């Protein structure tokens, strides 16, 4: 189906729902063109190509809501789904906060967002296969690498169509491509796995196979020989991907749903000092060419830039229409969660940060799920490199780190100048005053 037909289908369904008893209707369609190739030990292991479609809809009958979705876009199925949803909504409870967003005109020119690169679409499959093979070949030449789990090259072209009964009708498309590998190093029983993968909206900005291979080799080989250490409380330096991991947890704690449900330690803290002056956290859905940039969110609300924490003071939450109404605030265009969420850069180099630590952990990896938004508590498996007298010494493994996000935000001591926008959630190197490292 062409673009126009899918937007038209969405509009027709909105109309159909209105005629059949819904006071409000929203229909959203996503179409994805996906390609992926997995290469292992020099051979193609899996080649996949497909176009997928999915439709999501919400209906409101008075203030009662029901949802539905389908990968079957036949009109017969969809009209039955809407009629069913209207019936279900009637059996639901009335909720004065439920409803579609107010109509907001999109003033942004989608081209200025730079989220679509035709080169991704035009790239020949042979080139994608060659790029994946090249990454692996470089890695396997390194004598420290025991095995390859395989390299993968993906491309995705996504199109979104959204129409609602408040008169919104919009569409846009975006691209992304990625190339990466997972590796194993060490000797049985002390094996380590790590890897690297880079994702980009624009093909030309994707890291080269050499860069990806180099990073992957570096990331896995530095773990070799990792050992346990004694349990102790020490300062921890977060490598940028680990700062991003912390922000990921922060995003859950600052999401409107967690807030109005009081399942977050940040509930009711707007205007309060939740971190020290070094803490500045921002979500920017309009950053040109970034992975989390879109024209509008899952409800058709235009994306924007939202300051969440400014010099330690909590300024806003990540809100959709519903949670915003519940909290008597305004939607921030975050119905799909964070867009481009980042911890603003500071002035120190990573080297200066490490130099400042007499004894502590340089955190480079975590494993497991130990994050509780209600309390801010964090407790996870960890990998890192031990810092002694300002120098990186030996790798440590099979340890745990624990702390509390509220305390960590108050205890940020240094912030790096190495912020890069290579992922939709990102941050620089950051040093926190103290966490508990669990070991022997």
């Amino acid at each position, binding site marked *: 189906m062409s673009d126009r037909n899918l937007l038209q289908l969405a509009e027709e369904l909105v109309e159909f729902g209105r005629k059949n008893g819904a006071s409000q209707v929203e229909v959203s369609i996503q179409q994805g063109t996906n390609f992926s190739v997995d290469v292992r030990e020099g*051979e193609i292991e899996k080649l996949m190509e*497909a176009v997928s479609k999915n439709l999501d809809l919400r209906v409101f009958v008075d203030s009662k809501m029901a949802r539905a979705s389908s990968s079957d876009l036949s009109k017969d199925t969809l009209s039955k789904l809407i009629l069913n949803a209207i019936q279900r909504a009637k059996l639901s409870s009335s909720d004065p906060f439920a409803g579609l967003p107010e109509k907001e005109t999109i003033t942004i020119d989608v081209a200025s967002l730079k989220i679509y690169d035709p080169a991704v679409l035009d790239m020949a499959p042979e080139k994608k296969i060659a790029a994946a093979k090249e990454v692996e070949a470089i890695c396997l030449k390194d004598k420290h690498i025991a095995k390859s789990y395989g390299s993968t090259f993906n491309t995705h072209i996504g199109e979104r169509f959204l129409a609602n009964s408040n008169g919104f009708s919009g569409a846009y498309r975006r691209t992304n491509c990625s190339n990466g590998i997972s590796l194993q190093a060490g000797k049985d029983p002390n094996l380590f796995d*790590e890897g690297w993968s880079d994702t980009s909206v624009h093909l030309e900005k994707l890291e080269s196979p050499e860069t990806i291979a180099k990073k992957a080799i570096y990331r896995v080989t530095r773990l070799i020989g990792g050992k346990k250490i004694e349990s102790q409380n020490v300062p921890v330096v977060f490598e940028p991907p680990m700062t991003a991991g912390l922000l990921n947890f922060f995003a859950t704690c600052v999401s409107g749903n967690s807030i109005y449900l009081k399942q977050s330690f940040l509930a009711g803290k707007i205007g309060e000092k939740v971190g020290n002056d070094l803490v500045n956290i921002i979500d920017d859905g309009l950053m040109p060419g970034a992975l989390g940039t879109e024209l509008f969110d899952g409800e058709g609300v235009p994306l924007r830039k939202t300051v969440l924490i400014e010099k330690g003071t909590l300024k806003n939450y990540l809100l959709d229409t519903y949670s915003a109404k519940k909290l008597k605030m305004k939607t921030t265009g975050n119905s799909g969660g964070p867009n481009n969420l980042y911890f603003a850069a500071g002035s120190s180099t990573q080297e200066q940060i490490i130099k400042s630590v007499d004894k502590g952990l340089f955190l480079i990896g975590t494993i497991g799920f130990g994050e509780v938004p209600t309390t801010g508590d964090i407790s996870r498996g960890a990998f890192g490199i031990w810092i002694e007298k300002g120098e990186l010494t030996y790798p440590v493994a099979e340890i745990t780190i624990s702390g509390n996000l509220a305390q960590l935000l108050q205890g940020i001591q240094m912030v790096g100048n190495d912020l890069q926008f290579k992922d939709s959630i990102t941050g620089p190197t950051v040093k926190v005053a103290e966490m508990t490292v669990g070991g022997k």
Partner: protein
Amino acid sequence: MVDSRRRDFLRKSIIGLATTLTSGLWFDMLAKGIVPLPSLTFFEERFGVSREDMKKILEIALSKGGEFSELFFEYRTLNSVSMEEDIIKDSSENITLGVGIRVLKGAQTGYGYTDDFSFEKMKQTALTAAAIASGNSQFTIANLSEKFSGLHVYDLNLPMSDVKLDTKVDLVKKAYAAAQTYDRRIIKVQSSLIDELQYITIVNSEGLIIADVRPQMRLVVSATAEENGIYNTGFKSAGGRVGLNFFSTTETPEVTGKKASEEAIHLLSAVDPVAGEQPVVLGSRQSGVMIHEAVGHPLEADANRKKTSIMWDKLGTQVANPIVTIYDDPTIPFYRGSYNVDDEGTIPKKKMLIENGKLVGYLQDRLSAKLMNMEPDGHGRRQTYRNIPIPRMANTVLAPGKDLVDDIIRSVKKGFYAETYQGGQVSDTGKFTFSVNMGYLIEDGKITRPVKNATLIGTNVQILNEVEMIANDTAFFLGTCGKDGQSAAVTAGTPTLKIRQMTVGGRK
């Protein structure tokens, strides 16, 4: 972005309902009181895909020299109802419909899928999958011959997809009310009922045609308690491959709700754990997650065929204390991880993995079994028609031992007792981490104070050898397992057991 090859298991993957899966356009059939049964003609009757067309598509898929082709047809409906803040806030109905086409050549897989059953679209998809090979057709398609599982591991008497919404709302409300009224300190409750019905038909170039219809149902409750500014959340879920009768025969919604609140209240008085190596007792039921992560994942055939699992060269050797026996059984009636047929048409059987401490088998799918010269055992599973089948667990069990729970606790002077988990994660190298939602201190042979925020960390080789005592109070819990970006419904079961020494992470 770091590429993660880790497998994980999440206990509370709950409230984010209805983003991917399916629901019940069954009303036309079900309204007439027709009990759904596996039907080989389902996709022909409902969507007009004839057996002749299936055969032609299989042929096209082999036209470039592939050795094996397969079509996986899926139609799935998923319904959910959820209650929050004292109101029924949301309900959804989701449909997944499509066909996945797979072509194998040696160790190589070509894959394509479409949600359009027109012959032209399926042909185009088959040609995409066929491109993994480059040459001329070498194999012919055998005549399709029907195969029946003979297993009946589902309760299809009153499938939830056939149950009226007001009955479901009533169940959700009962669970909610039981959780809310359990204690005055309970301040928030969420309760949801999720049910699905999945129709599949698998045909392949070897002439197989087989069908299955799988119900799945789960009631999930989370409860948050507050006291003196301290908040804690407890979770409980109940369900399986069952229907409405589950709530009268196995567990009432009230019990599920109450248990969620019980955990939240217990956590209010919980202390942080003592960090460091210590004896650890794993309580029965939820500690199944440990067996799943530490033993199950490293024994999935794909990672062993590729020699990336720490267990690849240990078949036939002693890998655990001889008191340890572990198997996976997809045929346990009504369990969340059970099925009559796996997702590539193999009829599953109970598979012994570790017998008296010796490694005796891997969990196989077709591809790995063929390349390893072993037998497929019905563990090839996929999330939807959009995914290739890979070796997965179903219901993973640590067999009961001879010790008594009391003796196990008494044997620990100072240690940790793990009761409920948020989840766990393991890498191919055998390193694992578990996040314990609630545990207890063991002091002088007695269970004392509740503990929160503990993390258990170790390697599978170490833990298998350090299992010292095993009781016989086996119990299971329901989970959702993630691997290579695909999720699968599973259970895991274990009796209470003692690990001699393990690292506990915490904040002291």
